[in-house]
């Protein structure tokens, strides 16, 4: 199947729609805001259900704790702000009040990744996956486009139990998956078959990975593309099979290489099917201001750059004795 861009939209817009749909389907859903409800997409819900929306101001630590209290009171709270704040400023509150109590709290992380752009390093969440996936009991979702963000948000809220972190971005990106692609939490999606190597990606980078695979095909390299929309619990079998069947994996993410998707994949690969991996992401540094395309270019995250780097690594491996 060839995926086409059906019109670019942001994953935050998909999140806002998924939250609203959940609110329509269940009266127990409540949303918490930390002043930036319009830019996180929460305003859709807040406008429709003002009685179930609580503005808590620029006070994220309290916000995470209030969410825990609402869950203890039988509600399904969704606490959303920029990922740098919702996943990291509140880390201890999420660890103790939410996770240690094993509460079904959905934490939305907006403006994740380097593609946030001009706001610069303080607002570019590049460590949230590493931090959130290390917490006991926490599920971590990272949808690849607006449609998947909407579907996964609804599932995170209504179908999951325990704490869930869902990460999404600011920029409009190609909306390509569509309703017909079945999205099941914990189940990786093979978006493109291939037997020479596998590109494993998440979030906005999945579209770039598909582009890279198309470029690699012109060089005779048949790349499988896997979308990991659920980073935890991760689909072990999809990764083991990719390692067994293709023998070379490249992980691609808008996140620090240390601790992110690549690390999650490597944890499985080293114990099950040790194969060579190329881990692509942010190489242990802060971001900076710039247009999203400029920043993706700086870190080699555009499809053309990815194809060049992956082909080189793949050929190097082939030339090794």
């Amino acid at each position: 199947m060839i995926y086409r861009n059906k019109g670019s939209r942001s994953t935050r817009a998909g999140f806002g729609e998924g939250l609203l749909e959940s609110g329509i389907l269940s009266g127990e859903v409540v949303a918490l805001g930390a002043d930036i409800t319009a830019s996180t997409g929460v305003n859709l819900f807040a406008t429709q259900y003002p009685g179930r929306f609580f503005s808590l101001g620029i006070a994220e630590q309290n916000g995470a704790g209030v969410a825990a209290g609402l869950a203890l009171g039988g509600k399904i709270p969704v606490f959303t702000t920029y990922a740098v704040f919702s996943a990291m400023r509140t880390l201890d509150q999420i660890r103790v009040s939410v996770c240690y109590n094993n509460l079904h709290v959905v934490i939305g992380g907006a403006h994740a990744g380097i593609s946030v752009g001009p706001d610069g390093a303080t607002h570019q969440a590049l460590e949230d996956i590493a931090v959130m996936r290390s917490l006991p009991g926490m599920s971590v979702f990272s949808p690849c486009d607006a449609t998947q963000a909407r579907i996964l948000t609804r599932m995170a809220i209504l179908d999951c139990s325990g704490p869930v972190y869902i990460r999404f971005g600011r920029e409009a990106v190609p909306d390509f998956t569509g309703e017909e692609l079945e999205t099941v939490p914990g189940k990786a999606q093979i978006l493109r078959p291939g037997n020479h190597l596998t590109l494993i990606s998440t979030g906005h980078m999945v579209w770039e990975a598909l582009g890279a695979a198309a470029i690699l095909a012109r060089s005779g390299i048949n790349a499988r593309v896997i979308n990991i929309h659920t980073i935890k619990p991760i689909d072990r079998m999809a990764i083991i099979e990719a390692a067994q069947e293709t023998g070379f994996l490249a992980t691609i993410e808008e996140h620090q290489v240390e601790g992110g998707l690549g690390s999650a994949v490597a944890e499985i690969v080293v114990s099950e099917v040790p194969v060579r991996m190329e881990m692509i992401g942010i190489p242990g540094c802060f971001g900076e201001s710039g247009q999203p395309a400029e920043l993706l270019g700086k870190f080699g995250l555009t499809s053309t750059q990815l194809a060049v780097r992956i082909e080189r690594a793949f050929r190097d491996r082939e030339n090794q004795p």
Partner: protein
Amino acid sequence: MDLIKTSYYIRGLIIKMLASAGSGHTGGSLGLADVFTSLYFNTINHNPDNPGDPLRDRVILSAGHVAPVLYATLSAAGYFDVSELFTLRKFGSRLQGHPARDKRLPGIETSSGSLGQGLSIAVGMALAARLNNQNFRIYSIHGDGELQEGQIWEAAMSAAHYKLSAITAIVDCNGLQIDGPVDRVMNLSPLRDKWASFGWNVLECDGHNHNEIQACFKLASQNTEAPSVVLAHTKMGKGVYTIENDNRWHGKAPNPEEATEFLCQLNESLKIELSKNQEKS
């Protein structure tokens, strides 16, 4: 009279369980025994035989390190057998060093131990109760040093903003923390004014006088406009007179010899309290 005896019974349990554990927080646990006794034996709506009753009043121990006073009170109230207190801090116990909800000890509403988080949970519970049209009260218990955490004041702002009068916060004002006097480690005064300026109904009492404590709880429950805070003035180590107001006993447990001595002191203190009480009445 009975409440005084009960609070000393709880103090005795605290000493015994801490001596058995070999570590834990003695001073603050002893200091809060009267507040806990008044709360569980004369104030809250609860049923130890049905700890999951949706309409029960909630008690959140935000200052999780004084877990011994919570455990001892719960067992004295009948939530579980007193003998289980001697598993405190031991491997496999439901009585973790700090309260752990996942161990399913009856009466534990929330895990705690990282200071400053309980008041936010109380705010969330109060908002949920309002949406559910439930009228129970929520008591969150804090140390005075704990108020140095910024999250407390974020939570205080939000409780007043939403006029959550179902909340009664209790501050154990013993003036001491691990490094020394609170006003030297990081001054909180004027504490009454701080809470009042955040929009709270501020009440103060002698935290060892049951009549005063209960009068505060009653006044708090009658306020329908604002959350209430009770500044309970206590002595760390109350009842064991050789360690009263000695912050070295914040995080230390008595050894067996000390425990025997402390239990004797508790007996003497109880007798003095009872005779003082008789003189008054």
